[in-house]
């Protein structure tokens, strides 16, 4: 199947849709269904609202449009984001998820095991790894975040305040790639989603004790490697630079490996 790029108002050709009919077809962002009034009832056509690469997943019966990686993040339920506390009020922490948008709300008690007494006292500027709980409906709706899985009451997947470390800005497309790469099982190693940078860094930095990373859909990557003691800051910055340059220059896997070597050498982390 050839790659198909759609522009707004282009229709999705029928033969590009997954043929598995057992599940209902799920639409990703950038696509909408329109009805075409005709003499015999109405037909439905799928059209693009953004420009992007059409991708389908036959297993999950989804069709979506991969748009430009530099786009702005629009909160979607169940996304993992890295939010920064702006200020707190009686019931909520007001967090910044994307610049120039209204603050997202994070309940003071939406943390694992939080009660009036034990809730975390987050100050301005601190970071949390949170999940989008609801985005509300209609105009002026507020985005709500949570740091617990409402079903289990546990902080699954590392939700909660992020202490130490440092946050780096990457494009939303890069963030999505990192998340997809980490969710795909790491058996076939090397390049998942065309990303070799993380596995390469992991290999090189193993001797220093490795590092921790959290990726927010809103284009933020939090990196921490306090284990590495005195060179912690250096390692963190090196990882951040590797990710940002891979993102901005849209590097191929072999270039990513070269970049990792170059940066680590520059910062005298490996010989």
């Amino acid at each position, binding site marked *: 199947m050839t790659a198909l790029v759609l522009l707004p*108002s282009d229709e999705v050709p029928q033969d590009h849709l997954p043929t598995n009919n057992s599940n209902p077809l799920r639409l990703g962002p950038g696509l*909408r*269904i*329109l*009805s*075409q*009034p005709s003499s015999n009832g109405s037909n439905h*056509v799928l*059209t693009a609202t953004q420009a992007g690469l059409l991708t389908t997943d036959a297993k999950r019966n989804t069709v979506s449009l991969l748009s430009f990686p530099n786009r702005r993040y629009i909160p979607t339920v169940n996304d993992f984001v890295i939010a920064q506390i702006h200020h707190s009020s009686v019931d909520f922490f007001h967090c910044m998820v994307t610049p120039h948008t209204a603050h997202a709300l994070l309940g003071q008690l939406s943390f694992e095991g939080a009660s009036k007494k034990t809730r975390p006292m987050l100050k301005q500027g601190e970071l949390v790894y949170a999940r989008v709980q609801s985005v509300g409906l209609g105009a002026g709706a507020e985005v709500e975040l949570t740091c617990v899985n409402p079903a289990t009451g546990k902080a699954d997947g590392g939700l909660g305040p992020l202490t130490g470390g440092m946050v780096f800005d990457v494009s939303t497309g890069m963030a999505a790639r990192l998340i997809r790469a980490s969710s795909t099982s790491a058996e076939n190693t090397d390049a998942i989603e065309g990303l070799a940078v993380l596995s390469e860094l992991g290999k090189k930095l193993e001797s220093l004790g490795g590092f921790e990373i959290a990726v927010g859909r809103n284009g933020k990557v939090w990196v921490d490697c306090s284990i590495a003691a005195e060179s912690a800051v250096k390692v963190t910055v090196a990882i951040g630079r590797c990710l940002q340059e891979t993102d901005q220059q849209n590097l191929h896997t072999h270039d990513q490996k070269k970049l990792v070597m170059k940066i680590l050498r520059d910062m005298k982390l490996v010989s």
Partner: protein
Amino acid sequence: MASSTTASNLTPPSLSLPPSQFARLQPHAYLLAHLSPPPASNQPSIRANGRAASQFRVTSANAGSLTHTNGSAVVRIGDTAAVCGVRAEILHTKDIASWSVLQASSEHNLDNSNYAGVSESQDEEDRGHIQDLNLLVPNLSLSTGCAPGFTPGAPPSALAQSLSHQLLSLLHTTRLVRAEDLRIWYQPPNLESEEFGNAGEGMDVDTEESGGPEREIKAFWVLYIDVMIISLAGNPFDAAWASVLAALRDTKLPRAWWDADNETVLCSDDVADARKLSLRGLPVASSFCSFEGDAAAGWRAVVIPSAEEQKQKKSAQRRWILADPDGYEEGLSQERASVVVDKENGKTVIVKMEKHGGWTVDSDDLRQLVDVSAQRWDEMKRILDQC
């Protein structure tokens, strides 16, 4: 009266809502109900303000009411009223920094005029002087209280600024004002001439003696054209342009000459000496808006028919092109069209045509709009000639 009866027919009898409230609560449905009355009611399709779709509001014009200006006019189109005053000021060429450069290039043009058609190069030069030296300075202000929402002390709104620009741009493209009318010449006395005696007052522009020293431009009249919309009820551009047109037709410039001894420009205070501007043509602006019957047309999840399909299904499509929209109608439509026409020997010439904000108006409609505008031209000419 027709308007109120239709509206009350449509409101359910249990809810006795006066038409004025219906108009405020459901403006789109209100206008739609007027334009497409139920077939049973035998009502004609009419706008909520009682006009037919291509009917303009009652227009009146009155020129020369402001005595301290060189020319002025008040134009009223329905409830939209514009006052325009033209004030002329003298700009010495010695105050123009780039004058010597311009002079050289325009002389070059004049040389060419011997070969090419004289009138054309005249046009070019007109454009050069008026445009390069900013001899026409229109400004439009939407005064406080002309419509709700205009607060005192606010900076000029984007609407006022863009209207100012439209006026200026139209003055330039139509070349309405002739640069010759704005020039103040100096004819140096021909010292070799025998009849030197009468040269004391010989600055008269008309005396052009062959062989004498070349006459030169010493100053220009700059026309400050200030328009004030004192009441805004939709379609400000047509009213503003009509007022500019009427005011310029009314404008009289005093006779001015260069006094070589005092090195200054003197003006005559004799009214009989003052002369009117000789304008090129009479471009008349007509604005329209397109009202879509389907309020949700912009975001309904249906496939937008392509232009060809739209043409075929024209009859089924519900939209009306309304001439001279009032404020209420303007708020209900996004698509605007504006046509400026002039007539030369009975033949219609389009001076400016624009449409944007939608995709329902195309060639066929625009052709009709040009015809409507041509009719409007006759009407406006009559009104402006009378004022």
